[in-house]
């Protein structure tokens, strides 16, 4: 369980940080803003902070798909509000209605990137496992 938590934490940290760097690069290119190099440390720290609830979530047991969906919704909101707090603490930009909307869109992009990355890997694993299941039980099914 603990090993699983740390493995998930590392995966989410890498994925979230990569996606945040991508979003920041796009934002800086479009806006033409210059930022201090300290932002790189802030991105690393925010990646770690937002990876914590993600790693915790995957260790929770959900009895069915609906509970899982609710957990993910709660997780998304938690990430979104955590991001807003981090923006305020780091002073990345002023909190206005427009900046909240931008942050929401950025979190959605990062969220989709992270989920899709994990889903593609898991789908590949599921394919291999299904092949093995078929091989293992084909004799039983033919009987």
């Amino acid at each position, binding site marked *: 369980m603990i090993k699983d938590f740390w493995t998930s934490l590392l995966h989410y940290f890498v994925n979230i940080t990569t996606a945040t760097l991508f979003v920041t690069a796009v934002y800086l290119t479009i806006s033409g803003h210059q930022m201090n190099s300290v932002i790189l440390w802030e991105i690393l720290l925010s990646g770690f902070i937002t990876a914590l609830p993600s790693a915790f979530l995957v*260790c929770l*047991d959900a009895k069915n798909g609906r509970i*899982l969906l609710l957990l993910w919704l709660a997780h998304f909101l938690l990430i979104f509000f955590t991001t807003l707090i981090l923006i305020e603490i780091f002073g990345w930009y002023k909190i206005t209605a427009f900046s909240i909307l931008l942050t929401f869109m950025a979190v959605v992009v990062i969220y989709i990137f992270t989920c899709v990355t994990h889903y593609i890997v*898991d789908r590949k*694993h599921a394919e291999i496992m299904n092949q*093995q299941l078929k091989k293992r*039980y084909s004799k039983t099914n033919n009987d």
Partner: protein
Amino acid sequence: MKIIIESPHPDEEDTVIVRCASPDQNLISMLLSFQNAKTELTGYLNDKIVRLNYHDIYYFEANDNRVFAYYHSDVYEVKYKLYELEERFVPLDFMRCSKSMIVNMEKIEYLSPIFSGKMEAHLKNGEKVIISRQYVHELKSRLGIGEG
């Protein structure tokens, strides 16, 4: 390795013969667990008491301190703790898939990923069971897939 299953004569006891150069520890422990496996299980459904055949069980689920065995469509209560059923049935292709469930691997039609490293096992009776991330690793190793 060849596996040959022959029908014994009507008056003969079921016998397992292993023909190999030198039985190793794995083989011996596998045979012992097979020999000692207690597969008899009694299920309770309303006023009925039924002897359950483990081949027909899709999964066990613990709910409110009670444990249930799920058949294709019937559900029987069993008077065992989940960990006791795990000890008894894991050598028979059952596996823990979450804190409250043990699934019969033979009854899995296919697996599909759901977000967060969990898998959904689609059973042959149309039901779906979630396999927690930590048990996905175990399922992989039971299927002979190394962690990559």
